[in-house]
C-alpha cells in the first residue's frame, strides 16, 4: 500500500483479502471493519485470532482469508503473536526465510478478550515492544457465547448477564473500561480508535501506523445486530451515530500523544443512538429512566469538555 492518504471511499484499495461466505451474522459491523483492515494490511500477514465470533469465520475446511491464520484461547493471542514473530525473525536470521517473504503479525480479538481476559498478555506484548498489529472489534459484550457482560459493556445496557429487573432497572451498573487510555499509558508507537462507518479515516490510520515498528493498536466500535438488537440494515447508521453523538471519539496516539481525527461539528444527543437498540429499550419503556439517560449524556459531555473540544 502506498503511503499517500486517501480522501474518499472511491479510493479504497479494490483487492478483497476477506472472502464472503462466512458464518458471521448478516450486517455484522465487525466483519465490515475486518474487511477494511485486511484491505489496508494486504495479503502478507498472519492473523492470530483469540476465541470469539471471528474464530468462526474459519470453519474447517473453509477459510475466508487469503492469508495465514492461527487460533488461540481468549487470553493468549498476544503471546501467540510473540511466538509467530519470534519464529519469523529466527527463520530470517538463519537464512531459511527470504526477508522479502516476511509477514506482518496481526492479533484479532473481541472485547471480552482485549478488555478482560487477555489484558495482561497484551500489556506484556506492548511492554516488550512486540512488532505487531492488534485489532480489537468491540461489540461491548461476549458476543459469541450469548452476549454476556464484558469490561467493554456500557453503563445502562442489557446484556445476557445484566438483564434489567425490578432491583436494578438500569441493566449494567458498571462503566465501560477505557482501553484506549490503558493501552496509551504504555506509550505504544501507534494507537487508534476506528469505526466501520469511517473507512477513509480507518484506512489512513493503518497507512500511518505502517511506518512504526512495535505495537500498532486499533480498537473498532462495532454494531452487532443480534446482541444490540437492531435491524442489520442499520449497522453503518449506528456506527456513524456512535461517533456523531460523541460516544466513540475517533482519535490516534503517537508515542502517547493523543489527537482527535474527527470532531463532530455539532454533537447529536446520545439518545438518538440509544433509542435505536433493544439493549437500551428499558431506559425508555415502560418509563423513561431520566437519571440514567442524563448520566450517560453527561459522561459523553465530560469527555469532550476535558479534551477542550466542548465549552
Amino acid at each position, binding site marked *: 500500500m502506498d503511503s499517500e492518504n486517501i480522501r474518499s471511499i472511491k479510493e479504497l484499495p479494490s483487492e478483497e483479502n476477506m*472472502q464472503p461466505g462466512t*458464518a458471521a*451474522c*448478516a450486517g455484522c459491523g465487525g466483519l465490515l471493519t475486518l*474487511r477494511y483492515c485486511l484491505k489496508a494490511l494486504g495479503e502478507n500477514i498472519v492473523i492470530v485470532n483469540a476465541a470469539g465470533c471471528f474464530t468462526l*469465520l474459519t470453519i474447517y475446511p*473453509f477459510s475466508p482469508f*487469503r492469508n495465514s491464520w492461527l487460533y488461540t484461547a481468549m487470553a493468549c493471542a498476544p503471546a501467540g503473536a510473540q511466538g509467530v514473530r519470534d519464529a519469523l525473525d529466527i527463520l530470517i536470521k538463519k537464512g531459511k526465510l527470504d526477508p522479502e517473504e516476511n509477514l506482518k503479525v496481526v492479533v484479532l480479538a473481541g472485547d471480552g478478550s482485549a478488555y478482560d481476559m487477555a489484558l495482561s498478555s497484551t500489556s506484556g506484548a506492548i511492554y516488550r515492544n512486540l512488532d505487531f498489529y492488534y485489532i480489537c472489534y468491540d461489540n461491548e459484550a461476549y458476543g459469541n457465547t450469548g452476549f454476556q457482560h464484558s469490561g467493554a459493556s456500557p453503563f445502562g445496557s442489557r446484556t445476557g448477564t445484566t438483564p434489567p429487573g425490578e432491583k436494578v432497572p438500569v441493566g449494567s451498573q458498571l462503566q465501560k473500561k477505557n482501553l484506549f487510555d490503558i493501552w496509551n499509558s504504555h506509550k505504544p508507537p501507534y494507537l487508534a480508535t476506528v469505526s466501520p462507518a469511517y473507512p477513509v479515516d480507518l484506512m489512513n490510520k493503518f497507512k500511518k501506523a505502517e511506518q512504526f515498528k512495535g505495537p500498532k493498536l486499533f480498537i473498532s466500535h462495532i454494531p452487532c445486530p443480534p446482541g444490540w438488537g437492531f435491524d442489520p440494515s442499520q449497522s*453503518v447508521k449506528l456506527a456513524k451515530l456512535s461517533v456523531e453523538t460523541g460516544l466513540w471519539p475517533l482519535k490516534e496516539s503517537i508515542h502517547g500523544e493523543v489527537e482527535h481525527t474527527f470532531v463532530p461539528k455539532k454533537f447529536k444527543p446520545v439518545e438518538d443512538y440509544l433509542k435505536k437498540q433493544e439493549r437500551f429499550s428499558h431506559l425508555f419503556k415502560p418509563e423513561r429512566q431520566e437519571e440514567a439517560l442524563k448520566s450517560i449524556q453527561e459522561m459523553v459531555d465530560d469527555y469532550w469538555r476535558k479534551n477542550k473540544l466542548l465549552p
Partner: protein
Amino acid sequence: MLRLRFHGRGGQGAKVASRVLGSAAFLDGYNAQDFPLYGAERRGAPITAFTRISRDDILERGLVSQPDVVVVMDETLLSDPQSTPLSGLKKGGVVFVNTPLTPLETKEEYGIEDHVITLDITKISLDMIGKPVLSSLAAAVAAKVAGIGEKALRDALEKELSGIISERELLDRNTEAAIYCYNAVVPISIETTEKFREKENVISIPFETALVSSPSILSKGNTPLRRTGNWRIFRPVWDYDACTKCMTCVARCPEGCIQLNEDGYPYTDYANCKGCLICAEECPVGAISKVRESHSQTEEEDQ
C-alpha cells in the same frame, strides 16, 4: 411417543418453537422434552431443535435422529448439506415446509416421498407481525400436527413469550399469527412404522496420518463455496437508471460481495449476499430496492 425435529436458521426461532411446543404438550397433559442444538455458528446458520411428546414417561435422551415429524422453517435448508432435515425421517412421517409452494410442488422440487404440509409462514409473519420471526408460527403448525389443543397452545405462547417479548401488543400479534397458522393446517394422522430408512447420514472416516487428518486449511479464501446467499429473506435489487456509480454500496457491504460490471455498475453475488440490506440503506439516491426473496428463483435469473 411422538418425536419432532425443527430445522431453522439462527435468529428464526427454532429453539423457541420447540420450547413452546413442549410447554403446550405439557399443558395438554402430556410429558414433554425440548432442547436445541447450536452449531459453532452465528445468526443465519442452520440450527436444530427437538421435542419429544408422550403419554408415558420419556426415558429417551439425546438428539432425535429418527423423527416422526420434521418442521422445516427455512426452505433453503432442504438442499443444505450442513442441515439435511429429512435424514432419518420415519416412513409415513410428516414434513412441514415453510414455502409458498404447494405440497405437491414441494414434493417434486425436493424429491420428498413422505406426507408434506406447506404454508408460507414467513409471509404470514411479515403481514401479521411485521417482522420475519417464526417461532410461534412454527410452534403452532407443529402443535396442530401433533394434535395439541388450541387452549394449551395459547397458554404456552403466553408463558414462553412473555419472558422474551416485553411489549404486550407484539406478544398479542405473535399469538394471533400463531393461531391463524394453527387453523390453516389441516389435521392429518401420522402413521409411522418403526421401520427406519437406511441410515443416509452416517459416514465412517478412515484413520489418516496427521498431515491428512489434522485441521489445517491449506486452501485460501474458499468460503464463497459455502453460499450464504440462502440466508436472505429480502434481496437487494439495483436500478441502474437511478445509480450514479458512487461506489457507496460497494464500500459498505460487510461481505464484500458487490462488484462492478463492465459498464461500472455495481451488482452483487447473490450466492453469498446475506441480505443485510446495508447497501440499500446507504445508497444516497435510493437506487437499491428490497425485494422479498423467492428461493425458487434460478441462478441464471440471478445474473
